[in-house]
Structure formats: structure tokens, C-alpha cells
């Protein structure tokens, strides 16, 4: 199956024509997805449609040959979408051009993974597109979530949110496959207008892989209340939220409280990490991994290392170690690893670790390295370690309303996040 259509959004074709005019044009008016003013005029004047041929044909000819694409490109497939619009494949020759605004577009190409943070925005953008509109799910992430589908932050297929007309499998599909998908969409548009919809290919496995089970948008068993929830959530997300401003009574940000740091000259270059560690009273150097420093002393270590020429921040990694029973029992603990680097030839890495009890916090390094800001926010978000003295400790990857910290060992990887997954 190269490209499969699931034509369940198509109108049900009536058994026989209910209206004489409809019989003349071959289309049951009541089943049209939309009403076109020209269409009514045409039908009102007797004989006009005969004189000009079928208006249906004219309209669908215009529709299918100027499919303007709205690129809902989030990841890898977006690059192939760009490649399809570029020199070799050149979608322009089909009358398909990429428009960056939903209000002027006919087709939404969902190219890439949709996350629970992005899903309300996609829904809002889809609702902004004027009818008639179509959706193409490009790539396995948009179709089903791919191998991310059982993870806490990924929507298991875009058709749990909006109705999809054409699915293009692949990871990512070639530009040629995207072109094939657009041609299939053209066929579908053509067939739709004469009461001959493209037959839906029943594919029960496609519906079964959803987990947690949200009905697909075209699924008759889908809960109508879910639609309401998704629309409400999308409206909330698309409203303006100047979340940066502090609320009344909230403490003002602490700007001037950072500790001073010296910018080292070449002559101040201290020899090595071990020497500074010895000064700080750390003499045990474990064989597997970096030396362990106390949570309140490591700020001083970072300062001195920076003065000694380790000027580049490399990483901040927090790890959650779950409590272990058995032969060698160990309590629950956290570990935060840092590393700095010297710049230039013979670059050296200085790494250390801080071990924490549950609930204990570690001194933030934002005062020494401005780059620790986002790194520590990420570790706070995903692991739940708190950093003392961080000026802006908020979630960075997950929505503000998220509960729990996903990289903890007791966090279920496939946690549900209604109404999106």
C-alpha cells in the first residue's frame, strides 16, 4: 500500500437523486461539504448549466489544480517537504505552492511529530483554514506517532485531532512520495464531486495501534465530548498569554544577587582540577565517573575552574536513582553532573558530580555560567531537581500545567495527557 486513503470523511451518497435539479447535475446538494454561491446561481437559471457544461467540473478542476499547501512542518518530514518544493521535484508545477498562512491555504500537510504541547496549536490552525480543506498526514509520526507513540508527550497520530484525507507512509517519505500523495488527493477531489467518492480502504490495524485509545477523528465510536474538549483546549492555547509578567504580590526577579565571577587572564591559569578539588577538601576520586563534590561547595569549584581557564559550559545532567533492594540495597537519590571545557588546542574537560537526597536542592551555577539557565531548567523540568538561586526556575520542555517529572524512574513512560493522548 503506497498511499492509502481513508475516505470516511466523505459524504454518504444517497441511494437515488432526491431532487430533479440534483439529478440533472448528478450531485445531491444536501451532501455537499459546503455551498458555493456560483453553484446556486447556475442552478437557478434554467439551461445555463447545459450551456456552460458542468459547473462541478469547473470547480473541482480549479480546486485540484491550485492546492495551496499550509506546511504544518514540525520535524524531519518538514525538510523533505522543503526538498519537494525545491529544485528537483518542484511542486509548483502542479499548481501547489506553499503558503505560510492557514487563511489562504487549502491543504494542511502535517509533516512531523505532533506533541501534546503543539497539538492545541495545530487544532487552532486547522480551524482557521476556510472550507473546502483537506489534510495530508505525511510520515509515520503524523500517521500514528511512529515509535514515539507510546511516550508521554506525543500525540498518537494526527487523526485523533483532525480528519485526514491522505496518508503518506515513510520515515520520512521521499519528495516523490509527497507528490504521489498530492496526486491521490487530486483524484479524491475529482471523484468526490460526482457522487463517486473514493472507496475507503478498511484497515482495522491502523485503528488498533492507538494507545492510549483515543478514537480517530473519523471513527464512529469517537466520543463527541472529546471534540469539545479539544476545541476548548485549542482556543485556550491560541489566546494571547503574556505569561512573562509577574503577577501582583509576586516577588520581583533577583537581578543583582549573582555572585561575582572573575574573567581570567592568561597568567591566572591554575594547573588542574585535582589541585582545586584538594583545596576544597575533596580527596576521594572515584574510578567510575567524575569526583563527587558537596552541594554547597560546587559553586566555588565552578568559579575557580572558570578562573583557571575552563570557560565553556558543556553539560548539566541530573539523574534519578531509584531505591534498590536486594543484595546491595541503596536508597533513592539524585545525582547532578556538570562539566566545563577549556577552549583551543588540547581542549580538556573538567567534570564533577553532586549527590542529593530526595528533596535536597543544589546551588545553581547561573551566577558563573549564564548558559546554566536553560540547562538547569530542563533538568528541573524532566528530573525534578531544584536549583537554589536560579532566577527563573520554570518548566521549559513540557506545558506549565504538567504534573510529575518524566525522567524519574517511577514515572510511567506512556502517561496519558487528555484530551490529546
Amino acid at each position, binding site marked *: 500500500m503506497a498511499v492509502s486513503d481513508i475516505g470516511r470523511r466523505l459524504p454518504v451518497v444517497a441511494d437515488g437523486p432526491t431532487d430533479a435539479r440534483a439529478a440533472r447535475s448528478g450531485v445531491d446538494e444536501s451532501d455537499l461539504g459546503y455551498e458555493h454561491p456560483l453553484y446556486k446561481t447556475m442552478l437557478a437559471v434554467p439551461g445555463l448549466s447545459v450551456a456552460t457544461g458542468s459547473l462541478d467540473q469547473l470547480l473541482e478542476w480549479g480546486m485540484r489544480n491550485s492546492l495551496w499547501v499550509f506546511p*504544518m*512542518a*514540525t*520535524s*524531519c518530514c*518538514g*525538510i523533505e517537504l522543503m*526538498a519537494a518544493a*525545491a*529544485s*528537483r521535484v518542484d511542486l509548483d508545477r502542479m499548481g501547489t505552492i506553499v503558503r*505560510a498562512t492557514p487563511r489562504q491555504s487549502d491543504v494542511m500537510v502535517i509533516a*512531523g*511529530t505532533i*506533541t501534546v504541547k*503543539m497539538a492545541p496549536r495545530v487544532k487552532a490552525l486547522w480551524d482557521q483554514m476556510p472550507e473546502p480543506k483537506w489534510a495530508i498526514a505525511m510520515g509515520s509520526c503524523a500517521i500514528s506517532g511512529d*515509535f*514515539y507513540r507510546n*511516550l*508521554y*508527550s*506525543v500525540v498518537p497520530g494526527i487523526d485523533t485531532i483532525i480528519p485526514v484525507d491522505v496518508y503518506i507512509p515513510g520515515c520520512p517519505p521521499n519528495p516523490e512520495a509527497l507528490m504521489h500523495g498530492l496526486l491521490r488527493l487530486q483524484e479524491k477531489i475529482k471523484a468526490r464531486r460526482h457522487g463517486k467518492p473514493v472507496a475507503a480502504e478498511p484497515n482495522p490495524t491502523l485503528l488498533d495501534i492507538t494507545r492510549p485509545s483515543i478514537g480517530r477523528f473519523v471513527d464512529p465510536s469517537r466520543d463527541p465530548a472529546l471534540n469539545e474538549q479539544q476545541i476548548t483546549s485549542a482556543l485556550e492555547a491560541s489566546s*494571547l498569554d*503574556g505569561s*512573562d*509578567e*509577574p503577577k501582583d504580590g509576586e516577588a*520581583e*526577579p533577583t*537581578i543583582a544577587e549573582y555572585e*561575582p565571577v*572573575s*574573567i581570567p587572564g592568561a597568567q591566572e591559569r591554575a594547573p588542574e582540577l585535582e589541585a582545586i578539588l584538594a583545596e576544597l577538601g575533596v580527596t576521594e576520586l572515584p574510578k*567510575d565517573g*567524575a569526583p563527587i563534590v558537596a552541594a554547597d561547595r560546587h559553586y566555588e569549584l565552578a568559579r575557580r575552574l572558570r578562573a583557571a581557564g575552563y*570557560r565553556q*559550559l*558543556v*553539560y548539566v*545532567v541530573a*539523574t534519578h536513582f531509584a531505591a534498590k533492594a536486594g543484595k546491595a540495597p541503596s536508597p533513592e537519590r539524585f545525582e547532578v*553532573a556538570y562539566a566545563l571545557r577549556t577552549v*583551543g*588546542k*588540547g*581542549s580538556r*574537560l573538567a567534570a564533577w558530580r553532586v549527590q542529593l537526597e530526595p528533596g535536597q536542592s543544589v546551588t545553581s551555577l547561573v551566577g558563573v*555560567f*549564564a*548558559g546554566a*539557565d*536553560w*540547562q538547569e531548567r530542563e533538568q528541573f523540568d524532566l528530573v525534578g531537581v531544584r536549583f537554589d538561586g536560579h*532566577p527563573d526556575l520554570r518548566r*521549559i*520542555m*513540557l506545558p506549565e500545567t504538567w504534573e510529575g517529572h*518524566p*525522567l524519574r524512574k517511577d514515572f510511567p*513512560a506512556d502517561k496519558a495527557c487528555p484530551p490529546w493522548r
Partner: protein
Amino acid sequence: MSEDASEEKVELQSARRGRVDPHLSIKHYDPEADMMLLHFGPQHPSTHGVFRMDLHLDGEVVIKATPYLGFLHRAVEKLCEKLTYVQQTPIVDKNDYVAPMTNEQALNMAFEKIMNVEVPRRAKWLRVLLAELQRIASHLVALGTFTLDLGGALGGGSTLFLHCFREREMVLDLFEELTGARFHYNTHTIGGNRHDLPPGFDKKVRAVLDEIELRIPDYARMSVDNAIFRARTEGVGILDGELALELGITGPNLRGSGVDHDLRRDAPYAAYDELVPKVIVERGGDCWARTKVRFDEVAESIRLCRLALDGMPEGPINGYKAVRQPTQAKVAGGQVYVGIETPRGELGTFLIGGGDTPTAPYRLKIRSPSLHALSAIPYILPGFTVSDAVAILGSLDPIMGEVDR
């Protein structure tokens, strides 16, 4: 407070003078200014993916920029804890989807280090060849999309975009012949590579390199030497070297700020101790300097590819047992960090092995250069116009799959 400390404080203030404080609330700005809040993204063609900024504007000038991330958070690190070592290469391909080849290399090098696997010499040279070809393709995308940002989607800016993607397709064709995929190759494994060069491959590579080299002067006329391009990019988005280091920025963005640092030369891995690259440095720190670094690195990568083809040693391409089942690679414990120089900077893999399941990592953290590059946004955007904001974002060349993971 001791005398030393107060001296330090004075020095700090002089070093950080003029630097924007990203945490300063908008309430502290001039209340008389006629300010407007502009939401930029997450769905915007110039944000290079799904990235959102709140821009506070005074007229057309940005006075405060607040970035928001996480719209493509796919939980890769959690997924890697669930999968075995052998299964992870195709997962990390999707992180930096413009340069997947170097992604899988960074991951597998960490696995090799924690498992003590020796990589044969031919595999090392092969990795250099593939990484440099990938660098060419990736920098072409960066250059093409950057000019697209400057020129508008339907304007003259799309000329170079079309040129760059034409040449990129040539490189992708090579990769397709080698691995069967245009991207998401899954060709690096623990201990070496999966696909050896097919017969006659080096002739094809040389032909592509010649073709691209021939067109570099054309690109230069359309971009870095072009008067309009220079007017749009020179003096825009200046990032000083000290701030760049403090933020952990690496790669062309750092070298554009005058810092002579490249892991390929400074901490050699694979075969870079034999194939020493010339490090391109520009002093301007502006959008033009960052683009110029990428531009010159294309020529340098072409040179390295030719050297790698000339001296490609014979021998096996994998030093580890062949993959027979997903659970065959086991690690008892230990912590490693490996960083390599990808087209975007230092891509690192921090790995803790062992735990309950010896076949899967206990913790795997990907240090992404794009995340660090984006963290410069609140510092360097204020003072420039909205159109410059697009240029600055494009010149940092972030890939959101790698930022959010």
C-alpha cells in the same frame, strides 16, 4: 568582603556591562514607551521548526525577547532508557534531522567508549568521510534557508535556496546509494559501520565534490559577497565570544565570534588526528560572520573528503561482533561523556550504564548544540528590528528536533 572579592566584582561588572538581563521583568522597562507584544511562532516558516518567542516591541525595535521551547519534545531520552543499545541508532537519527550522520556517530562513540570497543582504522576514515559529506549537506541547508529568511518566501531570496537544495540532493543521492536511505541512515553501529563503500563509489563522490566546488563562487556572489546580503547581515545580532563561551555555544556560531575552537582539531576523535582540519574563524560575531564560517567550512570539508578518499585504508569496517539480536550488547556500569563536532557544534552523549537492565542505558542525555545556540536569543535580539530577528534566528541555524529532543 575581602579585597580580592571586590576587585572581582568590579571586573565582572566591566565584563558584563551592556549585557541584557533576560530575567528582567518587562515592568522595569520604560513605562512611557509605546510597547507592543508580538507572538512569533510556534508555527512560523522563519522559526526553523516549532519555536516560539514573545517579542516586546517599541515601534519596530525588539526590546525584550522571551523564547519558549518544547513544542517538539518527543521524550527521546526516556525512550532510550527503554530500548537496548543496539536499537537506539535510528532513534537519534531524528534528533538533528539535517545532519543525522553525525548524530548516530556521537551516540555510537559513547557506546564504544563505555564498552571498550576498538574501531578499525578503515571505519574511522569512513566516519570522517561521511561526517564531512554530511557537513556539506547541512551547511547547504543552513545557507539556503537563511537566504530564504532574508528574502521572503516568494521573493528573490529563494534563488539561493533552490541552488543549495539542488546540490544537497547530490550528496543525499550518494548517501542513498551507500545506505539505502536519503536520511535517517542507521549506518553507524557499535564498533564501526554497517555499509562499506560500494565499488566505484569514490569516483561518484569526487564528481559531486568537483561539482559543488565549481559552484561555490556562484554561491558567494549570491550570499556572502553580495552587497544586499551584507547590508542585511553585517553588524546584526552581535554575539561576543565571552558570552558565547558562557552559554556553551559551540560550532560555527562560536567560531563566528572569534573563538578558535573546534573539537575535530582540539580533541581529535575518529581519524581527525590524521586528517587535521583547518579551523575557520571570523571575528565579527554578527550574522555575516556566522554565515561566512559555514560558507568556508564547505570548502574545507570538500578538501577533507578528498583527503579521506585518497588515503582510505583497507580492512574491516567493524570491530565488534555482528548484530544478531537486540540484547547482545551489555554494560555493567560506569559513566562516560563523548562530544563530537557536528555541523552545529559539540554534540555530546552523556551515558550512565548498568542499572536493572544491563542491555539498556540507565540514563542517556544528549547535549545538543542547538539548545545552547538558541539560549543566546534573549541576549542578542534586543536592539534590532523584527526583520533582523528573523535573520539572527536563521544565522544561529537551530534544529528544533535537537533542541527539544
